[in-house]
């Protein structure tokens, strides 16, 4: 410690040595006596302490209390150094030494004589076991307490802390490894429990009637305890011979309660720690003590997977060890069979999701990211993940049956279940975090896991870990590095070894066997593990750069696929797309560098075929997944401009012009599907977006068709007529689904002076060309233009003039046609003509005075007949989303009847959209709000199901799927959990049943 001559004052010199407050340090040093100020060795010891001020303060208090100690310490510099190292880290242990100065002797280093054994005057039975590097034994602790003292609880506390002091000294001097320290702490806790039991027995009547064993659980059971935490236990009892069981259990319960109290009660000497028996069968509501048989009966019948996970750690620690060992042996068998139990796979998946979600949680504001135990990537995550793998593989591999985390991790690594480097890095992270935890807790012997953000505290931590140059900074740096490691642990532990299973590695290196890999994939939710392994092998095989990137990418992707509804499909789709794009430089780089893109891609590929199909034809669209902004709906005007530009660019080549527009449409379909599946837009918005996309596509195709027909006109003259496209049906209502056809009608108006016949010929040619262009075989999805709703249906002319429509409607129109016209909306072409058409049909669809009673009767009759006849043979009427009970048709006809009756008088009702009409009807008092809610709920759910069916299957469907697998996938796409398919159907039936009741009342007026 170079305290150079540059400092003129002692205070300055002290500050340079590391004291925060030089002047105060100087004053305290002087208080230690004349020799102290010049004792360079003392100064050196103080300066090496983690917190020199804290060490000096405590030393000063000790000297005040026990003036003789100074000389004793000077005489034994080794002892003094140990004392000050402990003082520099722990105010609480210093407090203990001040109160019990005789315990200074317990600090004796290697080779020093045993302790004075003066703990609370407990009969000199002390002696902290052997000295030196052999681990101390604490068997004498119970004897030290047992001597019939008046305040046994005080004696217990003092004796415990004396031994803790000794252990802490070995820890801070670096004489014991982390494993030794944590084992020592567990043994000390066990000894304290034993002593507490002795105290309890002395106080409890009939204590001899029962054999009681205390089973250590958690960190105590695993012999990896920290300085202060709840000690988890389970109590097992058996009646002594000839004693009746009920009585014995009553005694045992009293004993157990007394043990817990003996440890946790606050006396003049404070308390030890809480004893937590909450891991017992039935938790806090179960009996505190059970017999061995009763435990086993519970575990066989009722226990959940997490309880077996907890039992991994069980170890007899106090009381009747014979009984304790019998318990552990019996329970051990059950633990390792847990993976064969019902529901194990589901439980493991749920537990895994918990770990991953937790570790993935981004640091939130506040404490969470300073939490070393429960924070993301904290101690709990590491322990949990290791235990999970032990449960999965420990059944077939007994080498993994280790209680403590570090040995278990080592065993997993040796067996090839975890990659060696990953295991090493994780072990380092774990060791670091545990040491930090110890330093935090030593300070005040408080149960804390939060890293303080105070500079002085960080400095103490850094120096406690041996960082001297910039302790606070270096500590923070190291901590962040380990946390980053740990946060990706699920990937390392669960998925990366799967790659090694299929990789060609040197035979000497241990790795996951194909069987173990298949078992793990299955536990992760892959239905076809062999197939999955083949894909993994194909993606990661070889020495190309591409394979190298895949090797880093795939472990993460495998986890995301596992979370998706159909992991196998996700992996397959990923392989197909990677095969197409693998050599494109940006593709893998994007996935590797942009985690969000890769995650979204995995989710989409594992959800359904529609997106996979679109991507396979144009994989470059993966780039779109980059950000929510990319997935935001494009304004219709921008798309229209883009489409018009494409048509303009291709000029006379109608087919290539429309091909470009259809590619645009495919891109937007993909964007919409992704936004839909990511929950960014709701079903009404999906309908609106898909419909205006159809509008844009039709307009562009119309433009291209006009160009094509015009080019064939003699002399390139203008067409002799104007044309407009009227949207009908779902397109008219802006309610398209992914697979909807475009229902339209064509209207034309000959230009002044043009021949009627030529005009009609040209209009027909344009309409036919438009339909042809949009249906041409191409990799992009076709848009089928359906004009069957026109007057006279397929028998009627494809295109009519405005006058012809007028004539037809005035002579022939039926109620049914008026109802269909409620959906009529100008969609493309000549907008003046379009508006004229709409003006023409308005009096039909909004009849003045409302539709006649006969017409209402006819409409109801037609609807009733459709219900009976239109359903496909064998379809379940309750599950048909379009024509079934409470389905789309029910809701739409109800809305339309209200419109036909009232829209002439109530302009708000003049809309082509179902939900809008219903809302308007509520505002105008024509429909009860509660009824509107039921109808809208059914309509939305039915529409969402139809969209989801298309997204999942890649083709449209009207019925809720009857095949279980498909039904499951559709339910998942709608946000239900993996086994929620029947709940989904139940919900659909309920919603539609209620809607149907409204339809019967409002539409049929039953």
């Amino acid at each position, binding site marked *: 410690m170079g305290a150079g001559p540059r400092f003129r004052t002692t205070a300055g010199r002290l500050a340079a040595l590391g004291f925060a407050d030089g002047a105060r340090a100087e004053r305290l040093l002087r208080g230690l006596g004349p020799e102290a100020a010049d004792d360079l060795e003392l100064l050196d010891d103080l300066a090496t302490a983690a917190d020199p001020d804290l060490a000096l303060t405590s030393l000063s208090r000790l000297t005040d209390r026990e003036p003789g100690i100074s000389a004793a310490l000077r005489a034994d510099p080794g002892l003094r150094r140990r004392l000050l190292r402990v003082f520099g880290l722990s105010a609480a242990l210093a407090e203990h030494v001040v109160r019990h100065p005789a315990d200074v002797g317990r600090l004796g280093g290697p080779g020093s004589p045993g302790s004075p054994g003066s703990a609370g005057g407990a009969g000199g039975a002390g002696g902290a076991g052997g000295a030196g590097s052999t681990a101390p034994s604490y068997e004498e602790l119970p004897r030290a307490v047992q001597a019939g003292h008046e305040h046994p609880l005080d004696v217990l506390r003092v004796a415990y802390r004396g031994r803790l002091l000794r252990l802490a000294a070995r820890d801070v001097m670096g004489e014991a490894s982390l494993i030794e320290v944590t084992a020592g702490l567990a043994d000390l806790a066990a000894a304290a429990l034993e002593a507490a039991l002795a105290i309890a027995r002395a106080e409890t009547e009939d204590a001899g009637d029962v054999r009681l064993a205390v089973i250590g659980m958690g960190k105590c059971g695993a012999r990896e305890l920290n300085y202060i935490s709840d000690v988890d236990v389970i109590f097992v009892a058996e009646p002594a011979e000839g004693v009746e069981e009920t009585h014995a259990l009553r005694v045992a319960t009293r004993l157990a309660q007394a043990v817990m109290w003996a440890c946790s009660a606050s006396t003049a000497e404070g308390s030890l720690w809480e004893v937590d028996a909450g891991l017992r069968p039935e938790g806090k509501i179960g009996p505190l003590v059970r017999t061995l048989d009763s435990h086993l009966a519970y575990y066989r019948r009722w226990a959940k997977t997490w309880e077996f996970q907890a039992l991994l750690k069980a170890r007899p620690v106090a009381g009747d060890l014979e009984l304790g060992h019998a318990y552990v042996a019996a329970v051990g068998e059950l633990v390792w069979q847990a993976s064969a139990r019902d529901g194990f796979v589901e439980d493991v998946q749920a537990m895994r999701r918990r770990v991953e979600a937790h570790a993935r949680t981004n640091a939130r504001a506040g404490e969470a990211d300073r939490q070393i135990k429960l924070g993301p990537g904290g101690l709990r995550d590491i322990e949990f993940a290791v235990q999970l793998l032990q449960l999965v593989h420990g059944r077939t591999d007994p080498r993994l049956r280790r209680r403590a985390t570090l040995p278990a991790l080592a065993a997993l690594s040796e067996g090839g279940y975890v990659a060696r480097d990953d295991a090493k890095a994780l072990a380092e992270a774990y060791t670091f975090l545990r040491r930090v935890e110890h330093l935090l807790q030593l300070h005040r012997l408080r149960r804390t896991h939060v890293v303080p953000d105070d500079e002085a505290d960080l400095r103490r931590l850094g120096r406690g870990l041996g960082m001297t140059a910039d302790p606070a900074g270096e500590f923070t740096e190291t901590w962040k590095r380990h946390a980053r490691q740990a946060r990706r642990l699920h990937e390392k532990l669960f998925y990366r070894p799967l790659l090694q299973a299929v990789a060609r590695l040197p035979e000497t290196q241990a790795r996951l066997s194909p069987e173990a890999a298949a078992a793990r994939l299955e536990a992760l939710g892959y239905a076809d593990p062999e197939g999955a392994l083949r894909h993994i092998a194909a993606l990661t095989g070889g020495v190309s750069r591409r394979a190298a990137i895949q090797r880093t990418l795939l472990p993460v992707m495998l986890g995301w696929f596992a979370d998706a509804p159909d992991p196998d499909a996700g992996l397959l789709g990923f392989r197909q797309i990677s095969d197409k794009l693998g050599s494109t430089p940006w593709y893998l780089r994007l996935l590797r560098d942009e985690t969000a893109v890769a995650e979204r891609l995995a989710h989409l590929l594992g959800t359904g075929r529609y997106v996979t199909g679109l991507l396979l034809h144009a994989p470059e669209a993966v780039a779109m997944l980059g950000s929510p902004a990319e997935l935001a709906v494009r304004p219709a005007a921008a798309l229209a401009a883009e489409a018009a530009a494409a048509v303009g660019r291709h000029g006379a080549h109608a087919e290539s012009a429309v091909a470009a527009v259809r590619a645009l449409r495919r891109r937007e379909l993909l964007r919409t599907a992704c936004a839909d599946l990511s929950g960014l837009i709701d079903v009404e918005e999906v309908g609106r977006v898909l419909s205006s996309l159809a509008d844009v596509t039709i307009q562009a195709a119309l433009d291209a068709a006009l160009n094509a027909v015009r080019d064939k006109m003699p002399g390139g003259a203008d067409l002799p007529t104007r044309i407009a496209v009227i949207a009908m049906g779902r397109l008219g209502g802006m309610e398209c689904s992914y697979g909807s056809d475009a229902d339209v009608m064509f209207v034309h108006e000959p230009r002044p002076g043009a021949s009627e016949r030529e005009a009609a010929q040209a209009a027909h040619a344009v309409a036919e060309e438009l339909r042809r262009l949009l249906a041409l075989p191409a990799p992009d999805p076709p848009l089928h233009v359906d004009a069957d709703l026109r007057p006279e249906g397929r028998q009627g002319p494809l295109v009519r003039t405005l006058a012809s429509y007028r004539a037809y409607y005035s002579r022939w129109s039926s109620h049914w046609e008026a109802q269909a016209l409620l959906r009529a909306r100008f969609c493309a072409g000549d907008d003046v003509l379009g508006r004229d058409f709409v003006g023409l049909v308005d009096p039909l669809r909004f009849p003045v005075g409302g539709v006649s009673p006969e017409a209402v009767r006819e409409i109801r009759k037609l609807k009733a007949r459709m219900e009976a006849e239109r359903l496909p043979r064998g379809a*379940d009427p*309750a599950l048909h989303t379009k024509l079934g009970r409470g389905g789309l048709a029910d809701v739409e006809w109800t809305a339309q009847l209200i419109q036909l009756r009232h829209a002439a008088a109530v302009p708000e009702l003049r809309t082509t959209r179902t939900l809008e009409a219903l809302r308007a009807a509520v505002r105008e008092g024509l429909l009860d709000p509660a009824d509107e809610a039921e109808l809208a709920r059914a309509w939305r759910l039915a529409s969402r199901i139809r969209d989801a069916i298309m997204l999942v299957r890649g083709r449209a469907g009207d019925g809720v799927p009857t095949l279980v697998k498909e039904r499951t996938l559709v339910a998942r796409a709608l946000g239900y959990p993996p086994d929620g398919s029947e709940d989904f159907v139940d919900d659909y*039936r309920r919603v539609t049943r209620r809607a149907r009741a409204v339809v019967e009342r409002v539409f049929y007026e039953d």
Partner: protein
Amino acid sequence: MDRQQEFVLRTLEERDIRFIRLWFTDVLGFLKSVAIAPAELEGAFSEGIGFDGSAVEGFSRVYESDMLAKPDPSTFQILPWRSENPGAARMFCDILLPNGSPSHADPRWVLKRALAKAADMGFTFYTHPEIEFFLLRGRPEKGGLPEPIDDGGYFDHTPHSAGHDFRRQAIMMLESMGISVEYSHHEGAPGQQEIDLRYADALTTADNIMTFRLVMKEVALEQGIWASFMPKPFTRYPGSGMHTHMSLFEGDRNAFHEAGAAYQLSKTARSFIAGLLRHAAEITAVCNQWINSYKRLWGGAEAIAGAGGEAPSYICWGHNNRSALVRVPMYKPHKGASTRVEFRSLDSSCNPYLAFALILAAGLKGIEEGYEMPPEAEDDVWALTSRERRALGIQPLPQSLDEAISTMEHSEMVAETLGEHVFDYFLRNKRAEWREYRRRVTQFELDRYLPVL
């Protein structure tokens, strides 16, 4: 493989069991069985046994793929009757889909779901049924009239009577299947028997009722007679009901008991009863699911003047009032655990899973919403005029299956509890049954009209 499954596999070996019958129940309450060989059982435990659901009432139409029957090892029992020798055993099953989701068509699951809801509220549901049925001579023949095996009456003990032998053997057989019998005696009508099962949680009781009905039929066949659970086989005698005592427990405390309260009924019990009464009409179609059930409910009172019918046709409650739908039995001092209510409209041919689920749901609804119990009916309700009953606010139960269906159709509570699938199927099936009945020309019409019209 858990310990119970191991126990079953071991027992198969030790007792030389050659067949295992996997039992489940269709929506109407008929017992169904799939027989498998012991070698298939391990697979059945882990994955279930596939069967074609379309062959089972109420399971059909919805699923194209096979369903799975997954045995519940805690229900393992060796079948004691002679016709099953050599060794056969049975287990009740849960019905699953291949994706692990429970089938919503499985009545056992419907009850389990209702019980889970009760458990969420901290309750376990216990029931104790008193099952009545007739013993008849020979097998029923089309057009023939049923003939009771004896002329006995209530509690009669005729020497060497067939009924006596029957009960002794039947009870032995039940006990050998682990079903405890509380009580048994000759009921009021000739040939009519009553056997009371011991209190148990509702799922076990429902399983036991299914077993019970089969055991009675088996024992009767062995003795050359016929056991029938038809609600009302004789116009002149009372029908066969299944009065069911019930209580809710919170842990091991009877939640219906409150020392010092009127009839020792806690607030929970009073709200439960209020729920039962308010929803009684809605659940009648399930509690009394056959055309014939309504002959029991409505056939007694007028026919036997003075004696009154045994069946409770009016929605009210009373203390030791045998005419009330819900009866609060005499409280036995110092037996807090025995406080209970008795629901009396059920008949012995109901589907116990669905009926218990609805009764429980009605009661829980009362607790959730804090319904108030109406005043006690102190008079014999049958003796009142209909005007008097109306003045007291006492409503009748539905008078026919048709009326019961129409009432049930509008019940959210019933739809919610049965699940939409069972709700829908049940209504469709019962409407068809009613239509079938309505078109039938009955003996009554022929006797009455043919001579005079």
